């Protein structure tokens, strides 16, 4: 046999062993070849693996190992030298690569290990951040809750709602088992359980305020943890078997208005506090966290502010109510005062009107006879005071009307004549020829002035004559020489009347003349009794005369030389009417009936424009002075005692003409002031008539009205004061 490189098996061909080796080698090779494939596959899948070239190396090493084992398969049988060489080469390569790999791994494995630790580190960090995030979120939630709570509390101004909302919101936010509020009682010595969260109606628990735990809570503005067994926390029966939850209490300052001193806001000394108690759920392991306590403190402050706002509002509303009540009382008092004043005026008027005039006349005349100012002087004075008081307080108004001027003079003289005859005094009256017979003015007051002046002249003249002259003065003779700026201008509708009463009595010292007209002035020389006046008479005359836009003065050349009393007054001329307001006043046709209606002031209320104009035209045709209004408000605004007749349209829908009538009746309750009210209606039934009667109306006319009908109705009204007809 030649020397061959084949290696003869050492022992005899043991087929079984060989077979096993063969198979194992095959599988090894298979595994060795498949591992890199797997590696490649997975590396390709994950793009992140940083050590590719290590893998390549490792792959090469595995492949070569595999190759070695593969080639080994041929080594079991006869093989040629090439195979051996290949095997050797493979082995050599494998050896090189594996050593290289081993060397590399020495570098790499620590790195790989540190990756792992870094990963762990990062995981920890992430967990930590998560925790912190959780905390921040909780805090933000809390802040949000506080804001929401505050908003809820501040959105109402009702105490109870504020407190209830606080408890509810706190309970919800902090998931409390119970939340309660203890309020101090009126006496301030006890705390009373006022509100709870879970119990509907807390039965009146009270605890004295001087407990140490309460003092502890009140002494600080922080939330204080208290024992669940103390009296303020034992509000509800303990439900759980285990420990009750932790309890915290906080003070809520109750601020009063007087406590709002800006400078010492944080340190309000004598303060009242309420106590808020919060309980965590029992059987839970929860504890009070710092942020929760902070939340509670903030809420307590907010509640205090909200309560103080509510208190301020209550105070201001109470003050407002008080003011309203006071206003009502004042109004009532004012009305009563007005009623009293009106009553007084009515009394004065009655006195004046009914009783005084005859009395005055009698007294004046009797005092003229007696030349004494004795027994009845007091009465005279009183009466004059009444007149003067009315003159003084400006409530006096002239009673203007048309009268017979010549008649006034004649009457005065008739009154005085008997007395003058008794005293053997001669009285003469001289009326100027251009003096109008009729004039417009206050007849009664003019007569009083005349009576006063002439009476004085008679009273103080022991002998001689008295002359009364009346005329229309020329401009240069008008007025007192001492008052040169008094210039009277004659117009077409007015004229001035000057009256001079000259007597031959003792006269007056010129120096005393100014004093004559002052009230209550006594003469300086009572012994002579030559002064022409005492008491109020001349003062009143002066007032009347100036009301009639005139002047009165006395001239005397001295003692013993007699005295002349002169006065001027302004009177109206009756032909031209005073009412120049109505430009449309038609010229009155001369009709005997006309005189009765001339200037008769009528007020017409009618909503319908057309019928208003027709009624107005009708009345104006009859010579009335018509004012028209179209609504009940206007009517009540315009109505006054100047209107003698009021025509109300009562068939306006939606407007109660009857109500207007009732109101007018109420307003003018005095008989002589009250205008006559007549209803204009298109409705002729009995019910309408009765309504008119009931509303106090004086008449009832069926629309549409004719001229003749209106005329006869007005006549009836003015004569009888009432007219009622059912048919036109």
């Amino acid at each position: 046999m030649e020397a061959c490189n084949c290696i003869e098996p050492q022992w005899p061909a043991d087929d079984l062993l060989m077979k096993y080796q063969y198979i194992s080698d095959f599988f090894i090779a298979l595994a060795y070849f498949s591992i890199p494939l797997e590696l490649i596959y997975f590396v390709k899948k994950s793009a992140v693996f940083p050590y590719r070239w290590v893998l390549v190396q490792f792959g090469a090493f595995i492949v070569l190992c595999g190759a070695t084992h593969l080639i080994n398969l041929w080594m079991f049988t006869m093989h040629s030298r090439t195979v051996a060489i290949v095997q050797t080469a493979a082995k050599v390569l494998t050896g090189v690569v594996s050593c290289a790999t081993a060397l590399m791994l020495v570098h790499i494995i620590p790195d790989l290990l540190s990756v792992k630790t870094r990963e762990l580190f990062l995981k920890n960090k992430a967990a930590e951040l998560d925790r912190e995030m959780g905390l921040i979120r909780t805090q933000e939630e809390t802040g949000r809750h506080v804001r929401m709570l505050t908003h809820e509390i501040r959105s109402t101004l009702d105490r109870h709602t504020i407190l209830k909302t606080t408890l509810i919101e706190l309970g919800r936010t902090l998931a409390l088992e119970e939340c309660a509020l203890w309020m101090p009682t009126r006496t301030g010595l006890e705390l009373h359980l006022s509100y709870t969260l879970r119990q509907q109606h807390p039965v009146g628990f009270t605890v004295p305020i001087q407990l140490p735990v309460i003092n502890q809570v009140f002494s600080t503005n922080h939330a204080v943890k208290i024992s669940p067994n103390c009296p303020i926390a034992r509000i509800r029966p303990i439900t759980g078997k285990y420990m009750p939850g932790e309890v915290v209490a906080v003070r809520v300052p109750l601020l009063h208005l007087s406590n709002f001193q800006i400078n010492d806001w944080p340190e309000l000394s004598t303060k009242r506090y309420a106590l808020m108690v919060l309980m965590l759920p029992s059987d839970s392991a929860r504890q009070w966290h710092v942020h929760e306590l902070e939340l509670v403190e903030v809420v307590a402050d907010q509640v205090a502010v909200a309560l103080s706002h509510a208190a301020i509002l209550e105070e201001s509303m109470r003050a407002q109510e008080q003011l309203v009540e006071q206003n009502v009382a004042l109004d009532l008092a004012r009305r009563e005062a007005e009623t009293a004043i009106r009553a007084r005026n009515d009394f004065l008027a009655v006195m004046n009107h009914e009783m005084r005039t005859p009395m005055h006349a009698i007294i004046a005349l009797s005092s003229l006879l007696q030349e004494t100012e004795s027994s009845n002087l007091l009465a005279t004075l009183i009466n004059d005071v009444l007149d003067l008081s009315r003159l003084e307080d400006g409530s006096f108004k002239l009673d203007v009307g048309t009268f017979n001027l010549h008649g006034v003079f004649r009457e005065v003289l008739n009154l005085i004549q008997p007395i003058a005859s008794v005293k053997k005094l001669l009285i003469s009256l001289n009326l100027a020829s251009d003096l109008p017979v009729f004039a417009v003015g206050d007849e009664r007051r003019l007569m009083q002035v005349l009576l006063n002046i002439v009476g004085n002249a008679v009273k103080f003249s022991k002998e001689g004559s008295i002359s009364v002259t009346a005329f229309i003065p020329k401009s240069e003779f008008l007025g007192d020489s001492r008052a040169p700026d008094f210039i009277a201008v004659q117009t077409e509708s007015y004229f001035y009347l000057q009256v001079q009463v000259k007597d031959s009595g003792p006269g007056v010292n010129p120096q005393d003349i100014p004093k004559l007209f002052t009230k209550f002035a006594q003469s300086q020389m009572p012994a002579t009794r030559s002064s022409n006046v005492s008491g109020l008479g001349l003062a009143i005359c002066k007032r009347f005369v100036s009301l009639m836009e005139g002047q009165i003065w006395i001239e005397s050349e001295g003692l013993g030389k007699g005295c002349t009393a002169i006065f001027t007054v302004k009177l109206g001329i009756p032909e031209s009417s005073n009412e120049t307001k109505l430009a449309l006043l038609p010229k009155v046709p001369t009709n005997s009936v006309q005189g009765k209606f001339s200037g008769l002031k009528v007020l017409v209320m009618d909503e319908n424009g057309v019928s208003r104009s027709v009624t107005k035209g009708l009345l104006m045709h009859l010579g009335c002075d018509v004012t028209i209004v179209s609504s009940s408000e206007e009517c009540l605004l315009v109505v006054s005692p100047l209107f003698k007749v009021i025509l109300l349209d009562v068939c306006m829908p939606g407007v109660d003409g009857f109500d207007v009538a009732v109101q007018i009746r109420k307003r003018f309750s005095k008989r002589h002031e009250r205008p006559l009210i007549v209803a204009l209606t298109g409705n002729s039934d009995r019910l309408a008539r009765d309504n008119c009667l009931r509303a106090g109306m004086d008449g009832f006319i069926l629309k549409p009205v004719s001229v003749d009908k209106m005329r006869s109705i007005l006549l009836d009204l003015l004569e009888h004061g009432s007219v009622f007809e059912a048919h036109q």
Partner: protein
Amino acid sequence: MDVVQLLRQYIDCKTTLFREGILDDQFTQLQKLADDSSPSFVVEVVSLFFDDSEKLLKNLTQALEQPVVDFKQVADHAHQFKGSSSSIGAQRVKNVCIAFRTYCIEENLDGCLKCLQQVKHEYALVKNKLENLLRLEQQIVAAGGSIPPVE
């Protein structure tokens, strides 16, 4: 046209108005009120009546065109119209207004609409005739004549 013819036309117009019942005695009363100081009293009142009526008719038409008719308002307007027409003596208009009101109270829409038509017709008629009458009056006065006085 001379005064006599104008006068004849005037009298004819007036007689027709009264005979057909378009105007009644109230208008005569109004004419009595016109005198020297307010010669145009009748013209003024009649113009006022025309203005008022136009407004009322417009309101009535509008009120009855509503999807939901407010009968009370319609009745109020009809009452107003009755008032003004009776003040001026427009008798036929007044009578239609009376019927109108009754329909309103019954809330009879058809009746109301019918009355509206009727009142418009009557109003147009009286307006036309009155304008004619007043124009004739003016012409007579302008031509130097004088209106025959009212008995």
